[in-house]
């Protein structure tokens, strides 16, 4: 098979969309936080917590959608922690974010060890199965990629549309965007900046956690240490790459995932003549390159990382 032929196989695009799905959830979560003016570096740890919470709920007997809800709840909890420290207390978003990631990751690993003391190999669950949408899934290449995925992938795409609609078509979205640009003006309208930002961080963190849960409940069927493996940081790069717009961020996530799926196949094609680590490095290198290309003309939300104090200008 030629290196270019890979691009025209259905299995490649199926994999690309699958790899993109957790990134889409987490990127939308981070995008909401940043649009409200809060850089959430807790994303990596929150994804770990979501991956575990959703998986464990199902392992303990809950149904799959309850598992997703549990993951979201775990994410919301860490969002509450991060938000409380960064929004009303105005602590450094960098330091609190790293602290939240460390806390969520270590609490998750601790919980795993306490709840499953004797587990030598991680137990499996009955994960989400692909659901073929009649007719549409028979379209060549695009059919299987877009219309024969698990329900969580469909939800990811619906989420992007929903976030875009809320941001640009509702008063809530207008207020949210304004909070990230000019909080004093929003406060003057009688809207609480603190409440808006807290809400954004809590909901955004819940979405990040669902992104983590996709890994254990849809892509795989059990929980491993290190399984999030930097995906959270990549999502932060994707938010910048997408210029804080849901649609562009979606395209970025799919491009990125396609690249990731492509390097796996290229690796098989070259059969070990090139060190596999070079392939694994590419996603991270690509993220940095994308950041450099985009940052030059990026327009950050003006109040990103600036704590807001009522009555202060």
């Amino acid at each position, binding site marked *: 098979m030629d290196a270019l032929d890979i691009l025209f196989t259905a299995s490649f695009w199926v994999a690309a969309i699958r790899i993109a799905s957790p990134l889409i959830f987490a990127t939308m979560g981070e995008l909401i936080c940043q649009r409200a003016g809060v850089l959430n570096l807790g994303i990596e740890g929150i994804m770990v917590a979501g991956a575990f919470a959703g998986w464990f709920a199902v392992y303990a007997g809950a149904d799959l959608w309850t598992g997703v809800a549990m993951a979201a709840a775990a994410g919301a909890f860490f969002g509450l922690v991060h938000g409380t*420290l960064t929004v009303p*207390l105005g602590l450094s978003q960098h330091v609190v974010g790293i602290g939240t990631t460390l806390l969520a990751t270590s609490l998750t690993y601790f919980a795993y060890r306490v709840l499953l003391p004797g587990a030598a190999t991680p137990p499996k669950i009955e994960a989400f199965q692909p659901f073929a949408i009649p007719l549409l899934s028979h379209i060549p290449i695009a059919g299987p990629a877009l219309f024969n995925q698990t329900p969580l992938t469909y939800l990811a795409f619906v989420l992007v549309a929903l976030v875009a609609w809320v941001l640009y078509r509702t008063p809530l979205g207008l207020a949210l965007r304004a909070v990230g640009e000019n909080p004093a003006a929003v406060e003057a309208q009688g809207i609480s900046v603190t409440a808006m930002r807290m809400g954004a961080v809590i909901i955004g963190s819940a979405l990040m956690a669902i992104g983590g849960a996709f890994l254990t409940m849809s892509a795989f069927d059990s929980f491993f240490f290190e399984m999030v493996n930097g995906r959270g940081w990549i999502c932060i790069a994707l938010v910048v790459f997408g210029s804080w717009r849901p649609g562009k961020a979606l395209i970025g996530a799919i491009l990125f995932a396609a690249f990731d799926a492509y390097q796996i196949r290229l690796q098989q094609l070259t059969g070990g003549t090139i060190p596999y680590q070079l392939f694994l490095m590419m996603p991270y290198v690509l993220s940095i390159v994308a950041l450099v290309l985009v940052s030059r003309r990026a327009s950050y939300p003006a109040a990103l990382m600036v704590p807001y104090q009522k009555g202060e200008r």
Partner: protein
Amino acid sequence: MRLEPKPAPSLTGTIAYPIGAIAATLVLASLLVLVAGASPFNVFALVAVGAAGSQFAVLETLTRATPLIFTGLAVAVAFRAKLWNIGAEAQLYAGAVVTVALGTGAVQMPSVLLIPLIVASAVAVGALLLLGPALLKMRFGVDEVVTTLLLNFIVLLFVSMLLEGILKDPMGLGWPQSQRIIAEAQLPRLVEGMRLHFGFFIALVASVLVWVVMTHTSLGYEMRAVGHSPQAARFAGIPINRVLAKTALLSGGLAALAGFSEVAGLNGNLTLDLSPGFGYTGIAVAMLALLNPLGVVAAAIFVAGIFVGADAMSRSADVPSYIADVIVATALLTMVTAIMLSRYRIRWR
């Protein structure tokens, strides 16, 4: 609610809030111990004994503190200038790679020449590894948090590639590990038969030197000025980019020393598990030390004690040793809160 700066930070507050932070951390840890089905008092006693209950325990704690002093210093100097270096892990591995590249026999010379050569090279490579993200920040406005984080993954994969390629030990039975460094490249042990090595002494010297730089030189003053307010620093005519570049070189070099000292003083060779996250733990160490270089030594020993003690505890009580990471992460968050509360007053309206 709103925050009001306190006119002058009161002495009792400055002491009481950090103690409150540690108390809050202990309360959370106690809850987790209870959840795990053990007695908190018993567990904390086991941690304390494991960390400091014997000569062996104390020396183990100081051994574990050594890389944390270096990474803690690296984070402290960078954060002072608000250069958010989250890549100490990558810089640590860069220092370790240089140490095995030069120390496994490729360069033959007596210790007094070889070790300074390795140190200088390791520092240079670690420094350059942070200068890259710093330049991207200055030239293109790329957030250095994300670039330094992503570099951690890139460098670790690069090290993995080296350990399966040119740095691989042919006698390593297929394991990805480097050859052992030659005797001339090794740092001596400080106590006969124990693991504590000369790297700890270097770490102490480094913290004093960094303290001098931070408090008694114009560079230290400029770093704090840039960190406090870039606008004011620019108005005062401080060359911000040059200060940030120097900060990056200093910070990256210090983190690389952690990798050098772990290889040359302790492990003797390079493996992929050389660092169990010393770069990230360094952030907690620096915050607990309130970014004070001398405080970093105390904070590193405290944090190392928690890890060493928790390891010992989890072997005898049935509580996962991950509790050490929870304690350190919680201490980081409660400590930054305590610092804020000692400087501001919360007014509810």
